[in-house]
């Protein structure tokens, strides 16, 4: 059952990749002059997407059966679920607005999310007592679905910006758009580096002095650019760190972040060398036929649909679970606070749009920032600030 489950996930991943290519093809296809309506390519693409979604649903269900609990209980499971929800949200919105271009932007994000998930330990983990609750699973899944719908708004916002930002001259706007592209490259870089070294079984052990002055051992799976506090390499013939971190910093995590940034930078320059222009500038031809009003509305609609779902999952169900598991519905744990911040942000978004008339480009930027906050909560808060919710990173 476990093997079947992982094969289904693998299969879904491949299907998503193929579907993305078809979405790309449907935009490039000369046959469709309007550019935004679905053509034959697009029909195939959405079909493959649905097939992939069904396969991933299969992964989810079989893993549930194998483990006896809903598979959203560690970082790998939660993040793959988020990827699946993103694809699901895209499928629904695709059928409302029939825009293949949205697929070309959403599917790569979903693919990156799932690839990122695969970098975490994939073991089926038993539930500690606090996690043995149906409310927890209801909370986590609803929150992920809400975040996924909000992520579609990011994809639509990105399309809007790629189309509307003037690429003939460098500006604040082109800069920040490239920062978004760079962040995507860092994710690819992280996945590429982690999987290469894990394929090569890279492992180096250090003894070091932790922040309480105790000696401890830590194991790196990437070459240590920065080593731990007073670290001593214990594994022969491995890379010696170039620098050492102070005791309060988690050297291993910092090292991973550095690797992601460096590999992201390398990838980014490589792509720019090949394209000879900004990444967002080279995406522009794909979006030239899209109706701006349409993507603006998709972006806004996704927020309107996603906001209530997010509130329900990330705040209300979360409070119900916290009341039962932790005796109080709210504890100002970093993860909770960041859910509140996300919620306040989207509330501000809705007010600005409704009453200050922040439509179009401004609204698109807000959609991008909203997604950055969501990803911050998912990645940085789990791995760095970690509180009660940390699923043992």
């Amino acid at each position, binding site marked *: 059952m476990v093997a079947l489950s992982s094969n289904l996930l693998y299969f879904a991943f491949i299907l998503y990749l193929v579907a993305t290519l078809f979405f790309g093809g449907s935009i490039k296809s000369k046959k469709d002059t309007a550019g935004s309506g679905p053509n034959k390519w697009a029909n195939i693409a959405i079909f493959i997407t649905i097939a992939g979604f069904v396969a991933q649903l299969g992964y989810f269900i079989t893993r549930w059966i194998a483990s006896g609990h809903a598979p959203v209980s560690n970082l790998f499971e939660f993040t793959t679920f988020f990827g699946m929800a993103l694809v699901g949200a895209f499928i629904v919105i695709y059928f409302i607005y029939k825009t293949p271009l949205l697929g070309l932007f959403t599917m790569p994000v979903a693919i990156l999310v799932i690839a990122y998930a695969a970098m975490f330990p994939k073991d089926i983990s038993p539930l*500690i007592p606090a996690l043995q609750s149906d409310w927890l699973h209801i909370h986590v899944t609803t929150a992920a679905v809400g975040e996924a719908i909000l992520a579609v708004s990011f994809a639509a916002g990105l399309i809007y910006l790629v189309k509307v930002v003037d690429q003939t001259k460098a500006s604040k706007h082109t800069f920040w758009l490239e920062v978004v592209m760079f962040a995507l490259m860092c994710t690819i870089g992280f996945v590429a580096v982690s999987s290469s070294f894990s394929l090569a079984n890279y492992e180096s052990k250090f003894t070091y002095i932790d922040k309480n002055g105790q000696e401890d051992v830590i194991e790196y799976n990437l070459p240590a650019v920065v080593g731990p506090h007073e670290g001593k390499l214990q594994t022969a013939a491995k890379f010696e760190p170039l620098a050492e971190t102070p005791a309060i910093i988690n050297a291993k995590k910092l090292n991973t972040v550095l690797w992601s940034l460096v590999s992201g930078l390398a990838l980014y320059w490589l792509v720019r060398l090949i394209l000879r222009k900004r990444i967002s500038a080279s995406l522009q031809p794909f979006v030239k036929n899209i109706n701006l009003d349409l993507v603006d509305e998709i972006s806004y609609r996704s927020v309107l*649909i996603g906001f209530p779902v997010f*509130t*329900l999952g990330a705040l*209300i169900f979360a409070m119900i679970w916290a009341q039962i598991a932790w005796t*109080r519905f709210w504890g*100002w744990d970093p993860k909770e606070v960041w859910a509140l911040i996300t919620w306040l942000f989207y509330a501000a978004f809705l007010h600005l749009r409704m009453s*200050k008339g922040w*439509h179009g480009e401004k609204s698109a930027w807000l959609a991008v920032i909203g997604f950055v906050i969501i990803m911050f909560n998912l990645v940085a808060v789990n791995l760095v*600030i970690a509180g009660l919710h940390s699923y043992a990173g």
Partner: protein
Amino acid sequence: MNDVKCECGHVNPHGTVLCESCGKVLEEKEESKKLLDMRYEGSARRSQTYNKTIVDKIWNFFSSVKVGVILIVVTLIASSLGTILPQEMYIPQMTTPAEYYEDQYGWFGKLYYELDFNNLYSSWWYLLLIASIGVSLVICSLDRVIPLYRALKNQRVERHEGFMKRQRLYGVSEQPGEEAMSRLEQNLKAKKYHIRKKNGSILAEKNRFSRWGPYVNHIGLIIFLIGAMLRFVPGMYVDELLWIREGETKAIPGTDGQYYLKNNKFIFQKYDKKKDNEVFGAALDRAGMVAKNYQSNVTLYEKKGDTVAGESLNLKKLKEAKIRVNQPLKIDKFAIYQVDYKLDELSKMHLALQNKDTGEEIGTIKVNLYNPETKYDLKNGYFVELKSYFPDFEFDENSNPTTKSKVPNNPAFVFKMVTPEKPDGEVSFVAIRQTIEVDGNNSYKMAFKGVETKNVAALTIRKDLTLWILGFGGLIFMIGVIQGAYWNHRRLWVKIVDGKAVTAGHTNKNWYGFKRELEGVFEGTGMESPAEQLESGKKG
């Protein structure tokens, strides 16, 4: 202040921009605009009308959405500051915060502590921010809800031409025939529009209720905030911790001695690779020990009648229960949670009175470490007196024995051993792994023979009478957001003027979808769907 009478006969309150009934522009400065600001249907709002007294000024400040958004954004940024370093409630309990923050995080930690960011969410200024959002919610809703109600209720089918011309969607078509009009009506009905007709004009409207969504959700938020405030009213909220040993019966704190709890057994279980689901094997190998269950088996009692001090309690057994994480025990308004535990706390110590020369043991005593006896009789003229007892022994600064707490973590005793040979008794100080004799040449000693241990469970007793208010607020909020977000208020006006059909459309959001819907509605009627008048058409 004077009311304003429109030429259609409707009397509007002072400050009205567009006649509530026919939509004619009443304010001169609006007259010159190409498109109308339809946000509150141009009705009179207090905040737009009065700005003289201090009350007006405060009212206007809090009713502004701009101020509301600023408050929200400031709260958002403030909240994020509290996550940079752990809040005080999450640092190890035995530490002094002032030292902890500096030790762990250096100058930054010190600064963080000095700014009081270690208790950010209960600081006065954070609470003030939340309170301002609450005030803003109340005022901005009051400012708008009644005017909006009046305007939506008083709508006339026939609108003033000036009103129609200044709508975003506007068009003029040749006079349609009867048939075309009835076709249009049918199409509108198929799209679930409500239709009102007068003199051949049509007002088609749907989902008006969605306009109340924001007000409903704000009311939900206000209820929630009120609920959160009630927390501070005495009696609404109880939060107590009860450490209870196996075998012990204790009054449940916070219940005024009405309920008693006996801890029969505390159970701690780990996952076991052999017994549990084998798919967990890999994870267990990686993580080592993983906890599976924390459980207190308890008996709940209720006190019967009044007891005078000294009299024994009259307890009536209510039920047996298993309290586990995620499965609290509920009684009345109270819930009892499993929150912490201590395994194998010392409960009894066995000591033997031993002749130091011969090694002969006269007898063994069992000292109850929670509540020791003062004299242990070993028959035949042998007995042991307990002169002093230090459950959690240490030496104080003057090197005198003392105890850190009442918990028997490190018990120590001063015994007087009375034997037929030494009828005056010999004094011996006994602690774990050490014996000190006062005069140094005793002939008997207390030899350590063993211990008995018990588990201790920590239970949280919680009463929170605000929960249902918070839940109710949350429910109202959800209803409100969904109402406002999943439906939009759409209107189409068709008026016959001089043999032409004038059309105008308005929606409160999602213009793209509305335009597409109208195109469908006008199909086959021979009339043009009203067209976008906004330049660019880029706003939506």
